[in-house]
């Protein structure tokens, strides 16, 4: 399979998964580019010990989490800059508005709140919830992607859902 064929087969999988992490079309595009650059560089080393789609999921998850960590560092830097420079506009330009193209305008606020709660979960719980509730993967598929056991995934999903329910109850 050549690179273009591979891209066409997996582009939507990668793009949509990135969207579930960042909820912003521009950020998801950037992550998708990074993922396919990495895939191009590492394709020769891929040992076919997992399905190609599983491998692509792993790269996308890592790229998305790295992107979010880098964004968090940038925000911290922007905050420090804004303290020392009165006219700094660093904090004013926040490109991570909720801009998920898969969400209708009417439901935007409701869905945005749920994503906000998912975003607060620890990384593993967040990944398990995203793969389960947004990507509709089975528990076994999630275990293969996350390279962990079936029971661990069940526990991650349970704990993630529980945290979200408790937070919603607290907010109400």
């Amino acid at each position: 399979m050549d690179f273009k064929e591979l891209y066409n087969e997996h582009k939507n999988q990668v793009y949509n998964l990135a969207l579930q992490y960042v909820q912003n079309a521009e950020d998801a595009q950037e992550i998708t580019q990074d993922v396919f650059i990495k895939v191009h560089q590492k394709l020769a080393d891929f040992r076919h010990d997992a399905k190609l789609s599983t491998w692509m999921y792993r790269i996308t998850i890592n790229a998305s989490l790295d992107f979010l960590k880098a964004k968090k560092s940038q925000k911290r830097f922007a905050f420090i800059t804004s303290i020392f420079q009165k006219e700094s506009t660093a904090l004013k330009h926040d490109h991570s508005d909720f801009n998920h193209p898969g969400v209708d305008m009417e439901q935007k606020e409701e869905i945005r709140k749920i994503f906000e709660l998912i975003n607060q979960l620890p990384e593993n719980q967040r990944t398990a919830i995203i793969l389960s509730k947004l990507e509709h993967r089975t528990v076994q598929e999630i275990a293969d992607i996350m390279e962990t056991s079936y029971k661990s995934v069940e526990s991650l999903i349970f704990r993630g859902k529980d945290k979200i329910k408790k937070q919603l109850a607290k907010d109400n």
Partner: protein
Amino acid sequence: MQEPLDKLKRVQRTEAPPFLFTRIEAQLEYVKETKLTPKFAFAVCSVLLLVLSVNFYIINNTTKEQHSQNISYSETSLSPEYNSLY
């Protein structure tokens, strides 16, 4: 009570924008032309770090030797005066 996460069923799948592949190709071409792959950059940084460490070690050792030579010289130059006291 409805599961709150059930609302996520309303989130729809979207198509990746068509211009993305062009951007990816351009980036791959750029990396190929500059040959600045992450591995190459890492190799260069490692070599620079090694050279700097060796230089630091040499300079540090040279400074210590000079210092101890200065002390020995001071001791030698003082000793006749000490001898004269006896």
